């Protein structure tokens, strides 16, 4: 076990994979000489050289597409998209090309590429640089989507993503980069497997990314004996772990950093409902952000994401009432 920041865990995962497999390469904007806008590729250029670690022009479509081609010809490219929103100019290469190339080659090809993107709110980057956007990648057979929630998953999930033979989208909540955590370098995480971070009997709380910490604290202050699951992989998600937990607790809340309408949590709630309805003691529900663009002001942005207090309130309320709690903005009569 060693303590490191999330950004260092990412660097370590990249470096360890590059040492283990000479076909792994890294490119993106300012990832080489500058070692990454968020310092997530520190030391890589020095150790692995300018063939395998490259700076790119500001051309997300171009270099994401280059990763698709390189992956089909034997490399394992890891590309960095500085802010996940920038995939709005490159989505085609990831979901329309990379995700379908194996299907369209009758199984002759694989596309072992990783797209890393920082995401999420909390740092005052404004509405074009603060979303999570899992929905852009959902409903894409052929593409895997994971999100890291701490240093351990940053390290282990990143290694799993690079080792994976298919395209993997790795979402990195930007606000976590500077956070420290214990990392067991030998611990392996499998894509498609959720992490049970706390066992509990009364409630199942499914969360992802930066919301995992919020959910953990909320459970603590709420006093609810909840099982906390870090979904880790959004596609394909771990039905078994989640559904087994809900069968046990009879209750499900999803805590997500995504708008109330259209976020990834709806998939979890809908599936749990359809598959294990008879086990439910109360309606599964989502605790989300409101349906608004991410506001800049710190006062507003801190309320944009679910807060510890609000998550705790909702867990306690529903445990008592068996009803889906109102959102904080409904309570405050907003919108």
């Amino acid at each position: 076990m060693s303590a490191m920041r999330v950004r260092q865990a990412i660097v370590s995962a990249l470096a360890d994979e590059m040492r283990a497999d000479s076909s792994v390469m890294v490119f993106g904007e300012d990832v080489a000489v500058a070692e990454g806008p968020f310092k997530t590729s520190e030391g890589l250029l020095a150790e692995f050289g300018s063939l395998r670690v490259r700076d790119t022009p500001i051309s997300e479509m171009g270099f994401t597409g280059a990763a698709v081609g390189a992956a089909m010809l034997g490399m394992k490219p890891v590309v960095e998209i500085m802010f996940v929103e920038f995939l709005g100019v490159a989505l085609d290469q990831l979901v329309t090309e990379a995700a379908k190339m194996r299907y369209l080659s009758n199984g002759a090809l694989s596309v072992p590429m990783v797209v890393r993107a920082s995401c999420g709110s909390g740092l005052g980057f404004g509405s074009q640089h603060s979303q999570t956007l899992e929905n852009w990648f959902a409903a894409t057979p052929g593409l895997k989507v994971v999100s890291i929630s701490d240093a351990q998953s940053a390290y282990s999930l990143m290694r799993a993503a690079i080792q994976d033979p298919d395209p993997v989208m790795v979402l990195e909540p930007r606000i976590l980069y500077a956070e420290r955590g214990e990392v067991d370098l030998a611990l392996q995480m499998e894509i498609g497997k959720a992490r049970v971070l706390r066992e509990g009997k009364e409630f199942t709380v499914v969360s992802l990314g930066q919301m995992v910490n919020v959910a953990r604290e909320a459970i603590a202050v709420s006093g609810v004996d909840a099982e906390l699951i870090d979904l880790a992989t959004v596609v394909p998600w771990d039905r078994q772990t989640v559904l087994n937990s809900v069968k046990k607790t009879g209750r499900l809340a999803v805590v997500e950093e995504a708008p109330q309408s259209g976020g990834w949590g709806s998939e979890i709630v809908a599936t749990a409902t359809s598959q294990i309805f008879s086990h439910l003691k109360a309606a599964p529900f989502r605790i989300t952000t409101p349906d608004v663009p991410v506001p800049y002001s710190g006062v507003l942005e801190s309320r944009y994401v679910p807060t510890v207090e609000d998550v705790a309130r909702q867990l306690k309320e529903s445990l008592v009432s068996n009803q889906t709690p109102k959102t904080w903005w409904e309570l405050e009569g907003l919108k």
Partner: protein
Amino acid sequence: MSSALNRREVVQQDEIAQFERMVEIREFEEQINGLFASGEIRGTTHLCLGQEALSVGLAAELRPTDIVMATYRGHGIALSLGLTPESVLGEIMGKTIGCCGGVGGSMHLCDMSVGLLPTSAIVGGGIPIAAGAALAFQTKGTDSVSVSVFGDGATNIGAFHEGLNLAAIWNLPVIFICDNNIYGEYSRIQTTTPIEDLHLRAESYNMPHFSLDGMDIHAVRKGVKEAVDRARNGGGPTLIEAKTYRFAGHSRADQALYRPVGELELWQTRDPIKVTQEDLIARGVFTAEQAEKIKTEMKSTIEGVVATCKASSEPTLASMFENIWTPKKVAHV
């Protein structure tokens, strides 16, 4: 039914073999037209009638280990690189004999044994991908090259700009071939593009560039060879503009009534098959009789291919669920 690799060797043998392949493509495309008319093929298709010299000339100059990333207008390139008419027509008919087992269709042809990546149905989508294949070659230190084939209309999309800029700044072994057939769907080039000589756009990337006569297989081979040699020897990318013409409409439905009167006829006087045939006869490579014999034989060959493909089985429901994820522990190509 010879393998794709054998067929590739054949097209690299001699001028007669190349003439034969051009005739094969011509016959093949004519058959496709009929099969659509008779409702035996669904969906859409994009014929390359009149552009046979470009694909055959290209195939003649590349190694099977080189990579080609092409488009929905890919029948001719697939056949030229070596894919069998059965694997191409079978795919277009959605049969198991097809190169993608029938799940891909006319716009998605692939055979890695001869370096054909799955053709892309997204205009410009293949350009950065081809650069990426070249990136793999450069990083691994092989002397393979990558070729990206796209149309005139594709030079107006962002992926073209980003792909060429990236290839230039990284000095990648890739050849960009713009097949300028003067039309993007139903729009003639001057309505969408402020310049006529598209190869000049390479100046924005400080990249070598030239145009060539895409109706003349000699010109195609010469130009491709120059660019391939440069790329193989570390000289980086080239943009080639091949001046060609689309004898058919854009796709299945299109009658191409928007063409100026006489334009088609003018280009038909430079029909690559006609031109090559006359040249080979003039140079005594074969006689007019031999040429006609090749054509009539090819006609029946392709008819045989049609019969074979009609007889091929429909894919099973199970095949719809295959080849989405790579089985763990199975290394990729």
